[in-house]
């Protein structure tokens, strides 16, 4: 049916979708109505600490159910421009069911693209008008979730509910900075889990952050009070040493790590160095920590990896992307080669490029770029 309607839109109104044809009209009534996105009302905005903001959203009814640990893309309009960022949902299914809410914990960067919007929102909340504000979100994505199956080797196929308590593998969560968010969501789920086995599964959390910058510590304390199988340590790398020694006593567990690349590398290394007879298994979600582009990167020649329509090649930061794709014999459309005609345009999924005309650096998020006037500044993902 939907396909038929869209076909009609294409035939009669030369628009790919019917919703797209009407979008601007719907937006008269509901400014955040957008074809291809879900809407969510902003329930509240509050600061957790100097650099972190908590955003409580109430997604529209048809938004699919999420599993603790999944993330969404949040899209908001900042000065006419749609900016999209990905965040882990820092709340479980239960609060969605009970109150209809999900929560995002957002680190505010000084000149991040969302920052002006969030601070405007904060001042609006002060004047109690935030509930009228809506944003766009994507469906929940990702599979960094609590393992469902029993984890001891012999029981690989049977379900957790049927396993004997002593056969269940304990879980170690390793969080770095704002990487605590998926774990908070999972912990919320632990208490309301459907079976005793799920509730009594031992969970230990190693939470690394800068001194005094651990987030949501009150909630952690509360979960510990409610669930005797849950324990945690608040750690600081300068003071408490690296990850390796902490993990030494958990080699029989299932490890889950979420945090910056450096933390993940350390955990992965530790895991690789374990004696082979070991039981530890590893799940991870690391922020493809957007490499911050610095001015000096422009000077020295550097190489980055470019994924173009799925296949990857290495590019440098001296020539334009168009030139390098042509040299690699990739099928690219182009015209003028000087930034006028937009023939070479393609979608950059992520990464930063420099505009060779102005030297301006792009955003990290998805946007259209012109290959002929763009140079790589970070690793890139493109889709023609």
């Amino acid at each position, binding site marked *: 049916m939907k396909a038929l309607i869209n076909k009609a839109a294409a*035939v*009669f*109104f*030369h*628009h*790919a979708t019917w919703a*797209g*044809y*009407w*979008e*601007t*009209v719907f*937006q*008269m009534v509901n400014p955040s109505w*957008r*074809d*291809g996105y879900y809407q969510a009302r902003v329930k509240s905005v509050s600061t957790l600490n100097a650099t972190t903001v908590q955003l409580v959203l109430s997604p529209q009814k048809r938004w699919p159910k999420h599993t603790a640990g999944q993330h969404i893309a949040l899209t908001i*309009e900042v*000065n*006419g*421009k*749609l*900016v*999209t960022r990905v965040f882990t949902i820092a709340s479980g299914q239960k609060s969605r069911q009970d109150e209809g809410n999900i929560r995002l914990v957002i680190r505010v960067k000084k000149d991040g693209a969302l920052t002006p919007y969030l601070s405007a929102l904060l001042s609006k909340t002060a004047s109690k008008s935030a509930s009228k504000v809506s944003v766009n979100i994507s469906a929940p994505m990702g599979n960094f979730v609590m393992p469902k199956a029993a984890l001891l080797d012999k029981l690989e196929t049977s379900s957790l509910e049927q396993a004997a308590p002593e056969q269940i593998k304990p879980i170690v969560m390793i969080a770095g900075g704002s990487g605590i968010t998926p774990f908070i969501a999972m912990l919320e789920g632990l208490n309301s889990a459907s079976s005793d086995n799920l509730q009594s599964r031992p969970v230990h959390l190693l939470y690394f952050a800068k001194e005094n910058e651990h987030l949501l510590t009150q909630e952690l304390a509360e979960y510990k009070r409610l669930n005797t199988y849950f324990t945690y340590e608040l750690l600081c790398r300068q003071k408490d040493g690296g990850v390796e020694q902490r993990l030494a006593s958990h080699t029989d567990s299932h490890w889950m790590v979420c945090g910056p690349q450096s933390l993940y590398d350390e955990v992965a290394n530790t895991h690789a160095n374990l004696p082979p007879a070991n039981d530890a298994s590893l799940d991870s979600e690391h922020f493809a920590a957007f490499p911050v582009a610095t001015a000096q990167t422009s000077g020295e020649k550097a190489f980055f990896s470019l994924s173009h329509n799925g296949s990857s090649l290495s590019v440098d930061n001296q020539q334009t992307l168009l030139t390098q794709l042509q040299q690699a014999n990739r099928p690219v*459309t182009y*015209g*003028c080669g*000087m930034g*006028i*005609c*937009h*023939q070479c*345009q393609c*979608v950059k999924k992520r990464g930063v490029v420099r505009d060779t005309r*102005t030297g301006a650096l792009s955003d990290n998020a*998805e*946007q*259209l770029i012109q290959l002929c006037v763009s140079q790589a500044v970070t690793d890139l993902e493109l889709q023609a």
Partner: protein
Amino acid sequence: MITTISTNTVNKSTVNKSIVNEGQVLKGSSSRLNSGKNANEQTSQRSSKDIDVGTKKTPDYTKLATQLDAVKTDVKSKIGSEDAAYIRRVILAQRGCEWTGRILLMLGFIQPLLWVVGVLSLATAKILDNMEIGHNVMHGQYDWMNDKHINSKAYEWDIACDGSSWNRVHNYEHHTYTNIIGKDRDFGYGLLRLSNDFRWRVKNLWQFITYVMLSVMFQWGVSYHEMAAERVFFGKKKDNRKNQLSHAELKRRFFSKGARQLVKDYVLFPLLAGPFFLYVFTGNLVANLLRNLWTSTIIFCGHFTGDVQTFSAEDCVDETQGQWYYRQGLGSSNIKGGKLFHVLTGHLSFQIEHHLFPDIPARRYKEMAPQVQAIFKEHGMHYNTGGFFKQYASVLKRIVRYSFP
């Protein structure tokens, strides 16, 4: 280097005024020219050029580039929610006009006047769609919004021409090689002789009629344009063309988009109207006609007024940014008018600004125009602008003038 010829030496009261850039012809490949008679002309032109060089300064291209870049940077920093809201408003207006038009066409049986209003409304919708929305969005002027529908990759317009074909010829060739004879096929559309750069042929005698036909059929002209130049159906392909799509693919797209338009306007919509088939059929026909006349007239006024200059390919080798700006500026002309007029032209009434800054949202050209004009003046460049009737008369004169050898 690009040379200019001042028109001062030519009698202003005659159509000769519109002889453009004789210097180019001299420098350009003389194989294009007729021998004999033209040779004399060349000599005389050369002398006039020599005189000119003494009195007329060539612009300081570096400075020109810096100044125009500054205008651009300044406006770029202002682009934001206002522009996003504006284009959405225009789209909203377009939807309003389109539906009003389509419904009123069917009510023509109650009162013919309703049909007339319907036709005008539908024509307005098509004009908005083609000019202020389609043309500008497809130029990438609103790509910064990151909107799924309002961007140059996704937009398709209500016209027989396939959007991406237009993108190739218009955005690439026409905007990059503006008025370079042999490279910008938009100059005369391969149908009209509009300067001495082209050899006179007998068929040019009736090119005024060709022009009228082209205007009436403009959407098909635009649509066929790429294929004509690629010699898809007849003629020999020129060697200097690199084509990105096979002829079969071009043909397929031409027919599929063209056929879709025909079926939509003259079969589906009329059929939907049931007993009012004819009202809708003729209404669509007239609305398309009005749109064709309007768009072609505006575009001719922007490019083929008497003073617009042409350039030769040799001149543009290793062109600097300043020289590029210079060529863009002298290859276009503006039309003065009110706010609504500008919207209906898709702000192509600011053709000069559009050619200098093709991907700045067109509604900003108005505020850039006075600065651009001042810069042109400083460099002694002609800023070609005038009222609609003056510019249009100048276009017609040019077409007639070059009908003759």
